[in-house]
């Protein structure tokens, strides 16, 4: 590099030398772009392109968006979606915060178990989940039947927008729980001590120090909840709320015989709004640091609870778990029920449903584990890579990687399914169309769940001090080695959170799967569930399959929590470290 001409004014800082990025980073970015292009942009583009064409002629037009803006129903739907999403974030926060704080900042026995149980609501198997939910909270559900018998009142848990908020809140709060917990675990103890030392305690301490420092994790979780509610169609449809964007898009896209571009228009709007929400959340965090490692620091030791506090903590935990796990309890009962109809509890219990699915389920389970874990791994790798590129490099346009990947969250599953068929069916692999190979299902699952892992990795990386990486590079570790030996271990909590979210939700994904499954032998659990759930007699077996799915994911989740706990203990000030009296979260 030649020295710059000395004529440059001393005050204007010349930026000419800021190196942009290394070839390695370019290569990784290119690979990610290629993946996103093949797995997301092109397939979805071929489908969604309809939104920009005139019906009938196929010429380019934006008139459909004009129509969108002028259609009362859709405008109302947009607002409803935004409001419901925002309110759900609030409810999910209320549910997630206490669990996250109690299990991560305190020495709370059973933390791994609570974390696992608190995570289960995210795994709501399609169809049966809805039935179970209705059976507990619905107008004729257990609670309302009992309330009606005893007090002659009815609580509309599942009516209208409020119902949507309630159900979605219960369903998606694990996103916040998981990511917030990861972030809380990473906060250096001395941050809290410094504040306590200056007279701060309890809620104020939490509000001003602990929570802001965990903000990356919270934002990751909250933005996922927001866009998920925004993009979720199952719950509104279950609750018969149709004036929201996602159900509108779905209803229009999947109507037989009507070639209505509006469904795709709504999809495009959904993608735009979701990505804006993510971009906004990032904007809110810009210009702040969250890496707490300075000068060694105080470790990650947890605070011990006094007996009284223990009781309160358990009370809170149990209360929340009872609420959020009620649907799963119902699911379990459903799977064991002979008949359950308009009564608080089933008429009788039987193991027959499990017997019925026994033969089929092993192939479903194997497939599910295979697909979902592959998808989870792909997601974590991609998510970490994208987060790294965005946060740690100067690649021009790196934000776009993030945004494009996040767009996947808003693309309806059917659209991906159709797009995949359209894009990959023509490609021949050894005589069979590419789209018929099971690996394509994995690809679809991976791309659909990428946002979860991405947000989790992003949040985790925000909490890692760059100087730790510099120290490694300084000792001769290349960027790649630094990532492997320093970055990855330090964000392992976030990567695990990402993996669990992706894995667990992929294991019950249906919409895209339904398009792509070619035969029973390639089918995952969700597909098996679908097959059962189309007939009255299939409800029990369907529920049994649902329970199997939930248990499967729960076991995996629990194991990974144990790993996290162990790793965390190693980084704390020592198992027998000092305890702090008093203190509430």
């Amino acid at each position, binding site marked *: 590099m030649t020295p710059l001409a000395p004529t440059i004014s001393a005050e204007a800082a010349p930026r000419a030398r800021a190196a942009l990025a290394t070839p390695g980073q370019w290569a990784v970015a290119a690979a990610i772009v290629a993946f996103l292009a093949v797995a997301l942009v092109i397939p979805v583009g071929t489908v969604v392109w309809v939104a920009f064409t005139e019906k009938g002629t196929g010429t380019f037009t934006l008139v459909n968006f004009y129509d969108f803006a002028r259609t009362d129903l859709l405008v109302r739907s947009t607002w409803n979606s935004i409001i419901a999403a925002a309110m759900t974030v609030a409810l999910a926060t209320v549910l997630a915060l206490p669990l996250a704080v109690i299990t991560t900042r305190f020495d709370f026995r059973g933390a791994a178990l609570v974390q696992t149980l608190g995570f289960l609501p995210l795994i709501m198997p399609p169809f049966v989940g809805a039935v179970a939910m209705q059976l507990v909270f619905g107008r004729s559900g257990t609670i309302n039947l009992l309330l009606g018998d005893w007090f002659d009142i009815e609580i509309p848990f599942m009516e209208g927008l409020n119902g949507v908020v309630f159900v979605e809140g219960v369903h998606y709060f694990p996103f916040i729980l998981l990511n917030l917990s990861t972030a809380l675990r990473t906060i*250096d103890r*001395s*941050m809290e*001590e*410094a*504040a*306590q*030392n*200056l*007279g*701060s*305690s309890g809620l*104020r*301490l939490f509000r*001003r*120090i602990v929570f*802001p*420092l965990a*903000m990356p994790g919270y934002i990751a979780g909250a933005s996922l909840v927001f866009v998920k509610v925004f993009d979720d169609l199952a719950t509104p449809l279950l609750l018969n709320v149709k004036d929201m964007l996602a159900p509108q898009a779905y209803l229009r896209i999947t109507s037989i015989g009507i070639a209505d571009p509006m469904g795709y228009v709504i999809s495009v709007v959904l993608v735009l709004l979701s990505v804006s929400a993510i971009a906004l959340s990032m904007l809110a965090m810009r210009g*702040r*640091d*969250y*890496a*707490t490692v*300075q*000068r*060694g*620091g*105080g470790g990650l030791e947890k605070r011990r609870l006094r007996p009284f506090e223990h009781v309160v903590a358990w009370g809170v935990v149990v209360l929340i778990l009872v609420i959020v796990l009620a649907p799963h309890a119902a699911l379990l009962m459903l799977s064991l029920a002979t008949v359950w109809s308009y009564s608080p509890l089933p008429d009788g219990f039987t193991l027959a449903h499990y017997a019925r699915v026994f033969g089929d389920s092993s192939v479903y389970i194997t497939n599910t584990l295979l697909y979902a874990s592959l998808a989870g791994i792909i997601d974590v790798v991609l998510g970490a890579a994208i987060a790294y590129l965005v946060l740690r490099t100067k690649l021009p346009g790196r934000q776009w990687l993030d945004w494009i990947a996040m767009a996947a969250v808003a693309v309806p599953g059917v659209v991906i399914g159709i797009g995949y068929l359209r894009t990959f069916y023509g490609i021949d692999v050894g005589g069979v169309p590419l789209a018929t190979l099971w690996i394509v299902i994995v690809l679809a699952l991976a791309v659909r769940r990428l946002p979860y892992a991405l947000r989790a990795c992003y949040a985790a990386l925000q909490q890692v001090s760059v100087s730790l990486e510099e120290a490694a590079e300084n000792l001769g570790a290349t960027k790649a080695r630094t990532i492997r030996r320093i970055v990855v271990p330090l964000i392992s909590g976030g990567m695990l959170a990402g993996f669990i979210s992706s894995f667990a939700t992929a294991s019950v994904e249906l919409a895209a799967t339904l398009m792509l499954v070619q035969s029973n032998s390639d089918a995952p659990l969700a597909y098996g569930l679908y097959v059962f759930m189309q007939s009255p007699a299939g409800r029990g077996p369907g529920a049994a399959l649902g329970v199997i799915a939930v248990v499967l994911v729960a076991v995996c989740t629990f194991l990974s929590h144990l790993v996290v706990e162990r790793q965390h203990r190693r980084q704390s*000030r*020592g*198992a*027998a*470290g*000092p*305890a*702090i*009296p*008093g*203190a509430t979260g």
Partner: protein
Amino acid sequence: MTALAVDTLATPSVDIAIEHVDLWYGSNHVLRDVDLRIEPGEFFAFLGPSGCGKTTLLRLIAGFNQADRGRVLIAGRDVSGLPPWKRDVGMVFQSYALWPHMTVEQNVAFGLEERRLPRQEIRKRVAAALDLVGLGGLEKRRPAQLSGGQQQRVALARTIVVEPKVLLLDEPLSNLDAKLRGEVRRELRELQQRLGLTAIFVTHDQEEANTICDRIAVMKDGAVQQVGAPTALYDAPRNLFVAGFLGTTNILDGRVVRDGAAAAFETAAGTIPLPAGALPSGEPPPGAKLVFRPHHAILSRPDAPPAEGRARISGTIRFKEFLGATERYGIAVGASMTGAIEGAAILVDLTHGTAPAGLAPGTAVAIDIATDRLHVLGE
């Protein structure tokens, strides 16, 4: 200095008592029967080698550690059950523990906001505190945008701005240059006296401890070795550790020989007569050694007669170090000697520019030690 506490009435000073405290980290016995009393309004220092338990002791007082035995009293009240935020004990963390998500200003204002002071007042006091540590103008920066020393100063400002009754300073100045350190130190001292704070200072810099502290506790391996005023510790160390830790010291192996009332210390390099005060009362402790400071000796040509009140041993100059105000000479003497730091050399410090000419390494010299500065000490 801008007055920090214009509106605050000085509250009565508090004392701190640490009573027979033991503390373990797991199986690691970190504090051993620590028993100290710090007077109200005193500026007290903990001194000791790295890892001896100073921070742990401060954390105990601040409420972040719990003693496994013994107790801590602040203003006569047992604080074992008192959480940190109720103690009004301000601590400057050795690791700074600045909040990365807040600006410098927000970091410093935090404690005042917790005390719900009016906005106006907070602004004034934050500005004054930042001024005190020389950080005016950096209010809007975040910790990551500061140099190491600047971060340390934020940590200091953040604590002193709330004017806690007890001030715990864990190496608050280690990353500042001498000049700034001197200034801040003086400001600290003034603040402490004006407000009648009880302060405990941890430092590795003995000069620092000496300048601003009323009394010092010297610690080793979690146990207190000696407590006293700086000069007392320096001039009358209780044992070899204290002598060696507080400033450079020459330690000579040998044994005490008595001749009636008079006593002398016999070393391989010669016998040195001991003045009355040099020996501890009673028998000299086993393994006792002769101790004197490098600047309590002067160098002379071997042919010049020793001055009055000085004992002589002879040696050869091995090296010379320039320390700023003084020059340090390392002198090899008889094989049985153990220079505390230099292996087998005795150190002599001469004020820069006052040494006789021609003291190059290799030269034979006479070391004339002021006998009234000699001590015989055990471990």
